[in-house]
């Protein structure tokens, strides 16, 4: 028995040694140190074929800020995703290499590991990896040819080493993976709201009223007043919901005639007409203008829209249609009927979602401008447990 085991052991040792041929030297990467998130964000999943490592994140950050990703070497991802603006750009709709105004407002970036697993306002990308290459190639956005980009990066004095360390070689797939890796580290979890959730601070009276309204669907029957936000924006993440296309909605911006396809362009389902991605509201106070087409300049305008500006269409969310803080009676006009001070309170609550640490975090900043002291990504001071709950279910027990 022991002899047999020793033979098996020897075979295993021999095989593992044999597998190491000089052509396929294994990557020596370090798992990203100290990566964590509040447990109230829930589970997250990093693709098995693109683990978060120090090397992939460092490379991704560099690519994110590198203008060579565009055809004219003038525009980087960060041109439209500016850190101090919550990685949005302050413009109504984005502007790229061609100078033509694009169809959509630049989305803010935060907590991309959670919420809907479809990216862009119309959900046309199913992963961050897939998303990353689309603006690079779009002639009006970054207008870059991917093969040309690979050649350009190969000629650089840094990238061959960085790609080698992170993925083994320079390729379009690995460019996408690195960008996705960096984006996954953009965790915003130290706003006043987060501090409140951790029990470190109290909200002001106005902010607390706003929070209560945010998380309530109004119910006249039980005298519950609500801003109806939570029907689309989850309570802790403030993003749309994760499964399938639950994180997309028609929020009544346009009536039937003017209603654009939105998600329908992707799913071909007429029930999805006018659906757009429900964005995370993290850092919302610094990401104006608002909506997929940037039509609202201020949060006041957004609240006015939800309160009294809803346009009826066949795919309008029934939750929006139905929500009212007053008895509807026979009125057909959709109206949330919030008081002015309630709208102001919701805005005060939304301002607690601003995370100055995130907006100034050095490890998310432009590495080409960074200080000498920055050489590696450092771990956050406090580690919050419960961030990596396994995806699988363990077998049960019999009593």
């Amino acid at each position, binding site marked *: 028995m022991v002899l047999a085991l020793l033979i098996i052991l020897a075979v295993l040792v021999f095989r*593992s040694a044999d597998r190491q041929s000089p052509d396929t030297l294994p990557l020596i*990467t370090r798992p990203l140190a100290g990566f964590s998130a509040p447990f109230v964000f*829930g589970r997250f999943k990093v693709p098995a074929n693109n*683990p978060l490592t120090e090397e992939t994140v460092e490379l991704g950050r560099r690519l994110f800020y590198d203008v060579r990703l565009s055809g004219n070497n003038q525009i980087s991802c960060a041109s439209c995703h500016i850190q101090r603006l919550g990685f949005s750009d302050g413009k109504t709709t984005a502007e790229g290499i061609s100078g033509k105004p694009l169809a959509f407002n630049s989305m803010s970036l935060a907590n991309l590991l959670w919420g809907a697993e479809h990216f862009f306002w119309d959900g046309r990308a199913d992963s961050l990896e897939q998303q990353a290459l689309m603006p690079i190639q779009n002639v009006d956005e970054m207008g870059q040819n991917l093969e040309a980009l690979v050649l350009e990066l190969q000629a650089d004095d840094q990238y061959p080493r960085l790609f080698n360390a992170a993925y083994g070689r320079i390729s379009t797939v690995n460019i996408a993976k690195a960008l996705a890796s960096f984006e996954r580290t953009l965790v915003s979890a130290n706003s006043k709201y987060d501090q409140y959730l951790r029990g470190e601070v109290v909200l002001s009276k106005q902010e607390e009223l706003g929070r209560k309204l945010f998380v309530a669907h109004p119910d006249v029957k039980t005298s519950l007043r609500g801003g109806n936000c939570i029907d689309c924006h989850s309570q802790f993440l403030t993003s749309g919901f994760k499964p399938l296309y639950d994180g997309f909605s028609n929020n009544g911006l346009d009536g039937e005639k003017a209603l654009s396809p939105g998600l329908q362009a992707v799913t071909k389902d007429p*029930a999805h007409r006018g659906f757009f991605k429900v964005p995370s509201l993290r850092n919302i106070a610094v990401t104006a203008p608002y909506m997929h087409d940037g039509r609202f300049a201020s949060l006041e305008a957004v609240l006015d829209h939800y309160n009294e500006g809803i346009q009826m269409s066949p795919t309008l969310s*029934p*939750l929006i249609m*139905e929500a009212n803080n007053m008895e509807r009676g026979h009125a057909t006009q959709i109206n949330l009927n919030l008081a002015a001070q309630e709208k102001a309170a919701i805005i005060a609550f939304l301002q607690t979602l601003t995370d100055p640490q995130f907006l100034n975090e050095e490890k998310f900043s432009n590495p080409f401008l960074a200080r000498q002291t920055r050489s590696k990504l450092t771990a956050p001071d406090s580690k919050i447990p419960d961030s990596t709950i396994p995806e699988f279910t*363990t077998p049960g027990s019999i009593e």
Partner: protein
Amino acid sequence: MINISGQGKLFITAVSFLLLLSLMVTGCAPQKSSKTQSLNLTFKAVVGSQALVFNRTHYANPGGDGQFKVRDFQFILSNIKLRSDTGVYRQPDSYHIARFDNAGTSFTLVLDNIPVGNYRDIDFSIGVDPEANSSRRSVGDLDPNSRMAWSWDVGYKFILFEGGLNRHDVLSPLVYHVGFSENYRALRFPLSNITANNKNSEKPLTRLVFRVDLMRLFKGVNTIDMGALPSVKFDKDDAKLIADNFQGMITLCQRGAC
């Protein structure tokens, strides 16, 4: 994730082998005596005698005028238990969001690695037990950031039904979000008829099919006029009306009939 150089790999292989060996010696191998199987549970959604088709307005309002459409329907199915002659199998972290917006308008879940046994009944619940309903932790499909969550001080929606009612060509919204711990309903389905039919007793039960009838939300113990009660959210009496109905919305199909 972490790749290790040749020598390290050798060492780790040796260590893990020894670890495995020690586990075997200390007798952590219960699989030998108890065989396991899997059991497939399929839930098929219908609306009364009609198929469920989302976003089509063609189901009669059971308590009044007009026809309704279903835009979204999901519910939480939890705490699955199987009782056999020898004991009770409880699925761990047993919280599932059942949804039917797929080609077969059905929801399937598989119980893996359950002990082979002569099961007498299957139990599960609609909703979330009070303990989990007051927690912010993600367990099973429960997620405080999901569509099935209200704010954390209220808990989960056990059933979510959203749609519209068409009366005289006027479409009005329907919103039935029913939760609250008192509306948690445990159900039991005897399997004796199915297992008695199973001539070959060596062959374990591998599949159970249930019918989920959405019409029963509004036509059961209580008949509901959707025009008079177009939404149910936080009013406790209204929520109970629907809960008393949803208690009877699931039936077990036997010999091809449900």
